[in-house]
């Protein structure tokens, strides 16, 4: 008898391997300004999505390192992504050099693009803004966590932005034909490492990390690292992706709510500290 597969578990109990419902995101913890060295950083954020932990520091606006880099009408956004050697969760313990690992370089430029869509860079011409991201623990969804962390750090640094950029991943699992219940499309939100890696073996799954601006309702980044859905008709995949996007936006709504809550809390504390008046917090 074949071992019980994830999809069967999903079918039976409608819960995922960590006990979540399909449309639940992982527990998120956001801490603003964990790094207090104000000469080195203007803003920082520490974000945990489930077990994935990311720390981000923002410095800027700064003078450009090379005059040839500077743009006369905008600021330059520089994103450095680093994965700590102790970070990967399973097996993958190669130390990756951030300058040569293709995936890291790609992620860094993706993060940069999605942040640029929201930052108002034209307010700081001829400068650069540096965003340094370090992934401390990787349990799936590190790109999304990195984007979230970068957003929070930018907010902490006081950069003007059009909207918060929230990122979340979505996945689609097609139930196998043999399943009695016939659960066809289980759309999952915020996949963890186990779910992501299992999808690399199964050919009938879709994995879609997405970044959105929830209040404007637009998608800023979407990457389908999907394995081919062999039997699916195209519309189904697209609908799933769209659903995934919707899910992601809902997930991002949740993310943004959490972010906003922590931002308010932080701002409140700041104001209280400056004005020495504890009652100011209540106005928020």
């Amino acid at each position, binding site marked *: 008898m074949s071992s019980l597969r994830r999809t069967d578990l999903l079918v039976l109990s409608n819960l995922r391997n960590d006990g979540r419902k399909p449309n639940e995101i992982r527990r998120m913890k956001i801490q603003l300004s964990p790094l207090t060295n104000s000469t080195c950083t203007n803003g920082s954020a520490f974000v945990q999505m489930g077990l994935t932990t990311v720390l981000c520091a923002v410095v800027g606006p700064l003078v450009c*390192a*090379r005059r*040839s*880099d500077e*743009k006369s009408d*905008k600021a*330059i*956004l*520089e*994103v*450095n992504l680093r994965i700590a050697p102790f970070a990967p969760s399973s097996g993958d313990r190669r130390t990756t*050099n*951030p*300058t*040569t690992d*293709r*995936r890291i*370089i*790609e992620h*860094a*430029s*993706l993060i*940069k*693009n*999605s942040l*640029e*869509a929201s930052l108002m860079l034209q307010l700081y011409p001829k400068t650069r803004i540096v965003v340094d991201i370090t992934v401390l623990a990787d349990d799936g969804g590190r790109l999304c966590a990195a984007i979230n962390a970068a957003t929070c750090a930018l907010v902490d640094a006081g950069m003007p932005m*059009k909207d918060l950029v929230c990122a979340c991943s979505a996945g689609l699992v097609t139930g196998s034909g043999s399943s009695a219940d016939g659960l066809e499309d289980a759309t999952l939100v915020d996949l963890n490492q186990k779910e992501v890696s299992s999808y*690399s073996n199964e*050919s009938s799954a879709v994995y*879609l990390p997405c*970044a959105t*601006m929830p209040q*404007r*309702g*637009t*998608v*800023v*980044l*979407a*990457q*389908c*690292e*999907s*394995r*081919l*859905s*062999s039997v*699916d*008709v*195209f519309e189904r*995949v*697209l609908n799933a*992706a*769209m659903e995934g*996007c*919707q899910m992601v*936006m809902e997930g991002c709504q949740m993310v943004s709510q959490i972010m906003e809550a922590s931002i308010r809390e932080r701002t409140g504390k700041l104001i209280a500290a400056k004005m020495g008046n504890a009652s100011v917090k209540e106005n928020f």
Partner: protein
Amino acid sequence: MSASTTYTPLRDDTAHRSLSTNEQQFIRSCATGIITKTSSKQIDRNGNILRTDGRSAGESRPIRLSFSRTHNMSECTVQFGANTRVSSVVTCQLIPPPNSDRPNDGSIAFSVDLSPMSAMGFEYVQPSTTLTGQSSQGMGQAQDDGQKLLSNRILRIMERTLLNGGAIDAEALCVQSGKWVWRLMVDVTVLDHGGNLVDACVLSAVAALRHFRKPEVDVDEHGGGPTVLHSDEREPTPLPLHHTPLTVTFALYSDPTGASTTVSALIDPSHREELVMDGTTTFSFNKYGEMCSLDFPGGCELKPRQLVTCATLGKRKCIELCDILETSLVDSDQKAVRERLDRLKLASGFGSSKDLALPDISENVPFVERTDPERDGEMMEVEQEGLKDQAAAIAAAEEESYRINALDYAQGHVAAKVKEDAIKRAKKTSGKGPIFGGSLMAAMLKSAGESREVDNDFESELELKGSSKKSNKANASSRRTEEADDEFAKFAEEAAKPATATKSTTTTTLSSSMDIDSDEEETTTLQSEFIELKDESKGEVPEKHKTSKSKTRIIKEDDTEDIDDLAMAVKSKKKKSKKGKK
């Protein structure tokens, strides 16, 4: 890592890859369908868009594919419109399994080379590659991040589409479990950057993979190691590709004021459009309409509904592209199979000599010993069984055809000395010359064009002086170089026309012969002032195709010209001084 300064990795602020402000505005307004005040229609963006090269928003450039295949190698060159050209080569080699915990898995390595010849601003960087164990060291050397990011993006999309999408199965590359597997190497070289490199690279890589034939392997049971059999000995097999994914790229333009979120999406952006775009999206589909990957690296906001619309349009385009690919694959496959059969026939001596594909020896070839098919046919029949002899026979046939080509002075490369004579003969026109080939000729002719007038004067001095000796010599040498010069004249005309790149393996000689007729008349009109000279030489025209004896004589005379050729600069000065004397 310092990043490039704008939304997309392609745009950079270095002067030679950015556009002037009004050019940017123009392209943007074309792309977003906002027509300037002269027109009042600007409502339906995607419907009314007219791009700078005349295309509509959903139109892609015409595509040309050309293939070639030999033993253990296949090559495909893709050309989009006039400006984007990418070539990829697939080869394979036997290696022990690279992954010890996966003894049945072969490996596939992609590499992308953005060569400096393709675009200004590309520097020479080692091609970025996915070959494990060989970190992409070239990445650190590129001073230009835009190039680094672009090659990375192309590589990642190829990886994602072909490897992750399940097109190639690593397990199918196993030869002997645990001992020998194939490593496929797909090397993509960008020859010309005219925009939309992602699509071109993926298309050429996929096409080359489809066209590739894996050679058979003889596994020696007794531990001798596997031997790869030549494709002429045993028919090679195609690669087991589950499906053929192709990509479609959009360039996105959003409202710069940020007020509305309407977005224009252009298919197959050209270089300029890419420099101005706000964002880009790449979809990948196969001919069944299944989406293999989606890559939206941001830079531009999109509503989900817009993403879906792009995907639908992209799917349609991809399916068309798949059809184009299939038809050209079938054609080139048939051609390659035919060529292989011809080679085999030649080797084994089957069929009469007229079936053989040996090139005809034109009269221009002085000394050729031709293997006599009748005489050697019997010998070959006897030795037919041995594989070794067969290989030797193939080699002999190839050598012979090579020799014929090399000795045929009328074909292939032409030495500079011939150009010298050709210039002198510029005035004399006559009937058709033998078939010449090569773009080297065209280049030489172009440079010869400048010194032509000078030489013409020299020749006219010769004639006017009426010295019989000199004119005889001139005529004699002119006889042969007349032909050469006709070719030169033709190629001068051709060089003036936009170069049509025929990168297929069909020889350029065929095409040039077709142009010979049209260009003949033009050369006559150009040299109308030397008509009397032309009449003189007309009598000698039929003697042109003489026996090799006269050829040798002419060649000897050419040798004397050769010596003069070395002092060409001095000569031209002499001519000028002669002109001055007059």
